[in-house]
């Protein structure tokens, strides 16, 4: 009788998905295929040389440097006063970081001009914002990470009803720009405290922690909707708020207490006098719905608006209550499952351009891989114009 020997199947490598809030979750949401190319495949982005990304990197690094130097000694900082020397060193630090990504020798004149402008913005932001914010900082550029159970369903949005592969968990992480602690809401106090007081349903006098995210952008406005549509603009705002809520949720897994407030600061709105566009904007403003100052109102403030007015215009504050956190958590799980579903599809020998859906949006105008995109490749129609840069794509994509 012939002996029989059985050969097994090759087990898949045991790898838990590692997802970053900005670098993976939000990029996937914006367009799964684009995320597959740049995020998973590590294909470089042609706009890596572009002004917005590098300027964002410069400004974030400068704020990190200044925040670390000037935050209180007991928070691990050096406790220096915010002054021109600190600001100058901080900007130098940001410039050196940018030099490491984009050598000066390979920069265009336009790019260099944009980086010079970003250096000015960073310097002035530190001087204006620093004295009010830095004393509350407990950490800057802080990496937070958590693991979550992998949902075992495949989301409808990528089709099918297969179960996901059996990795039990995924890791989700992010780098929050700043964590402020000990903020006592006070309508008549420091501008930050007033800002928080105004955003809380029941402010009280108990100190709160705040997760802060800087965006080198203006707050998305319906006045700029154009071809993008209000849904797109609102989605962008929601993505920014989701980001701070997600950081708070991730940090919550092991931190002693949850941050109660999330703050997004749109730096270009903090210093609109540096932004040549601000004089030409008009129309309804989504920010106004949240109590921010419109362009028209801004003009009335004259040449030297107060810090409170600047912050009022530039910040969006969200109370991180249970509902917000639950919503952010569900969104994290949903996107993680969708990413895994696409990866599974590709693992079954489906080409990436078919396994990862495309998402047609105003962002397509900025997409490097659009020449290869099935959505556009042979469409024979014009592409949308260049969309405003998303804040989350600036300076944070290597957060982990």
């Amino acid at each position, binding site marked *: 009788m*012939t002996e029989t*020997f059985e050969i097994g199947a090759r087990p898949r490598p045991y790898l838990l998905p590692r997802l970053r809030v900005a670098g993976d979750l939000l990029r996937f949401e914006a367009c799964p295929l684009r995320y597959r190319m740049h995020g998973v495949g590590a294909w470089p982005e042609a706009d890596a040389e572009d002004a917005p990304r590098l300027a964002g990197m410069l400004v974030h690094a400068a704020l990190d440097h200044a925040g670390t130097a000037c935050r209180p000694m007991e928070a691990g900082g050096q406790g220096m006063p915010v002054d021109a020397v600190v600001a100058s060193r901080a900007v130098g630090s940001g410039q050196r*970081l940018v030099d490491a990504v984009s*050598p000066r020798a*390979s920069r265009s004149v336009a790019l260099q001009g944009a980086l010079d402008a970003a250096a000015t913005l960073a310097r002035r932001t530190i001087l204006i914002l620093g004295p009010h914010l830095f004393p509350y900082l407990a950490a800057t550029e802080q990496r937070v990470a958590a693991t979550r159970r992998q949902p075992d369903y495949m989301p409808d949005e990528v089709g099918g009803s297969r179960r996901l592969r059996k990795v*039990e968990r995924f890791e989700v992480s992010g780098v929050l720009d700043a964590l402020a602690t000990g903020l006592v809401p006070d309508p008549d106090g420091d501008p930050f405290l007033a800002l928080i007081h105004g955003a809380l349903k029941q402010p009280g006098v108990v100190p709160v922690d705040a997760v802060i995210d800087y965006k080198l952008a203006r707050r998305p406005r319906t006045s700029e909707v154009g071809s993008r549509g209000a849904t797109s603009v609102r989605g962008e705002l929601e993505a920014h708020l989701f980001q701070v809520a997600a950081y708070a949720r991730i940090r919550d897994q092991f931190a002693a207490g949850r941050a109660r407030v999330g703050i997004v600061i749109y730096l270009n709105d903090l210093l609109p006098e540096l932004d040549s566009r601000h004089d030409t904007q008009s129309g309804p403003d989504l920010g106004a719905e949240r109590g921010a100052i419109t362009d028209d109102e801004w003009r009335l403030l004259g040449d030297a608006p107060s810090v409170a007015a600047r912050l009022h215009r530039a910040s969006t504050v969200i109370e991180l209550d249970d509902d917000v956190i639950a919503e952010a958590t569900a969104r994290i799980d949903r996107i993680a499952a969708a990413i895994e579903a696409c990866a599974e599809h590709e693992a079954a020998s489906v080409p990436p351009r078919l396994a990862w859906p495309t998402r047609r949006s105003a962002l397509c105008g900025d997409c490097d891989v659009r020449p*290869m995109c099935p959505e556009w490749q042979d469409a024979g129609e014009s592409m949308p114009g260049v969309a405003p840069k998303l804040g989350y794509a600036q300076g944070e994509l290597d957060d982990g």
Partner: protein
Amino acid sequence: MLRPEELFGYLERAAGRQSPDAGQRAAILAPASAGVRILAGPGTGKTTCIVTRMLKLVLCDGVPASGILAMTFTRKAAEEMRSRVLGDGFAIIDAAREDRANSPAMRTALGAIDLGQVQVGTIDSFCARWAREGSDPDDPFVAHVDDAGAAMAMEEVVRQRLRGADWRPAVAFLRELHRPHVPINQYAADVALQAAALHDLWRRRLHDRVDWAAFLAGAGADPEASAGRLQIHLAHREYASLLKSRGAMDHAMVQEKARRLLANPVSGSARRPAILEGLRALFVDEYHDTDLLHQAVYFALAGAPGCRGAITIVGDDDQAIYRFRGGTVDLLADFPAAYHNAFGRNPETLVLDVTYRATPEVAAFVEQFGSLDDAYQAVRSLGRKALRPGRDVAGAPVLGLFRPTLPDLARDIATLIRGLVHHGSVETPAGRIVAGPGRAPSDLALICRSPQERDRQSERLPAYVRRALADGAHPIAVWNPRGAPTRSGRVAALVGGLALRLLDPDGDAFRVASPRLLDDAEAVMRGWYEDLAAFLDGAGGADPTRARELIRAWDLGSRRSHGPWESDIPVVAFLYELAGALPDAVVDTPEFAVAFGLFLKQAEACRWVAPAATFIRRSGRDLTVVRASVVEVIVGLLGPVADGRRRVEDEGPDPFPRNRVPILSIHQSKGLEFPVAIVDAGCFLSPRTYAFQRMPETGAPEHRFEKTVRPYTELWGRVARSDRDLACDDLIRSQFVAYSRARDLLVLVGLSPCAPDFVGQRPVPNLATGWMRDGSRSWAENPPMVML
């Protein structure tokens, strides 16, 4: 905290892992503060062992998760280890928290443990982080150039040196080490060869921590030799200056900077790497491939105040195959002495000898192969035990498939693969081999010393197997990213050809660039031109419509589908536009991602080593500027792809495409396992050729480099082996790695004269098939395999 037995219980029940065996338990349970050397044969569960020891330190001994640091050599290994820490660890924590037998206080304490704080990564990534942390706030940030980028910088230095008068002694020195068989005039004219040798010596200088002053003085009274060493010293200095001027460092420089910061921390300084504060236990995987610089980094870390020698290393001297990168197995063997010198006590040595990967038949074969050559036994680590099978179900015997010609051999390999993939079984003299459910072509791997499909003269086995599998009614594709002729393949030809067609339609810039192109790049690029022309004419069946549209649009100053080009076009954007003009049938293949990735990686490297090639200067400028820009793009971007300097890396994607049969080099296969491993055991017809691949008669360049610098390193004085012995040892090790990749079925394949039982007139001596270096044959009478 948990007791170890509870940990093992949860590990089995909640994480689905096998309970550790006696050897693994001993390693896991060694005291937290101990130095531990684990000698672990293939498939003996070293990853499980390391991960469980880490979890034991955190969950049983109360070591903070942030105090655990584990270092591996590859990203893939790091990712897998980290996944296991999180996956197994949180499964254990969750189960323990749900277990009402545990006290509420313990459950709460376990819930607060953040295993995400455990740090796992490659030595490259960690050193980059520490070097960055240790920089003064006013220091410029530095970018890290990869090996191909570093090679380009070194070539720049060599070109500069060649213009001087004194470079000849250096050429003679490098040639003697590197390619003594190449005529001196030919070597002296080859920039790429000299740069490669210079770069190898640079890496050895740093990785072997060479006493450079002694090396320079080491030529004694020989003026020619002294002049050669001095020239090399000057060239190295120029290389370092060149990178510095561009804000860049190579891997070796980054690691050396990290070592300095770790070994000489300034107390209380911001430049003191933060890891030194909280480190409690260090783990190092694959210690058999470590080098003196790496070891210095490890010992500096292990000397941190909270760590004090708590280092666990894992290695297997039989699997040391990275000598050519400076790795030396001597450091694994000498670890106890080095540890004692550093920490004043002895480490424990523990052995994992039960292999769970392979069937008893494969395990026995691997063990027998490793024990065959008498001279080899002298360099195996002391205390090593014979591998014992951990799987108790008998498997198929090892098979031998040797045929007179490569076409015959490839045909029969294809028959075997087809039978298992399409029919689910094959009949052999040993019995019926049945592939279980869920089988896929990627379950079978062809492992070769080199996966190259052709050498300068002819095609090699991988090419024949590719064709044989493609024939017939049910073709099976192979996945051979390193061995396929990528630079002259279809994707590269279309991308490169389109780039040349758009940028330089008349070939003017190409003529200017040609003298600066290395090796056969010019011929390869001419091939691109021709392949593109054929494609545009509709040859090959692929649709050229998009490519024609792209060419028309370019001539009008526009992209294919939308908008005008900017005047300075980033080459990355240009490359994406080219890719978008290719047919779907080309773009939607795994080969596209590999070949197109080479162009993208080179575009990134250009920022540091060829900044003028990062933009294409287009219209509105002086025509000479435009043409000069195109020349730079041809030389800096396309050249390294065409001449093969920009090549596919060892660490490719895994999982492989499920519908392809992977063809891998032994180095690519390291750390992987396959249900069926088909291993090239020798495709040689003559006992006069290719001795270095089967029965070395002398050493290879890596052995000569090692011998040259070793007198000026800490390892000087160790009992030296001859170059030939080193080469034979290395060959046995790499074949050991290849054979031990098999899980259920191992098939040795080759040409008939290499068969272990060949009885013809001219058998080919071959260490892979039972020969020993003294010329005797062990397997001639009774080969430990069933011959097909």
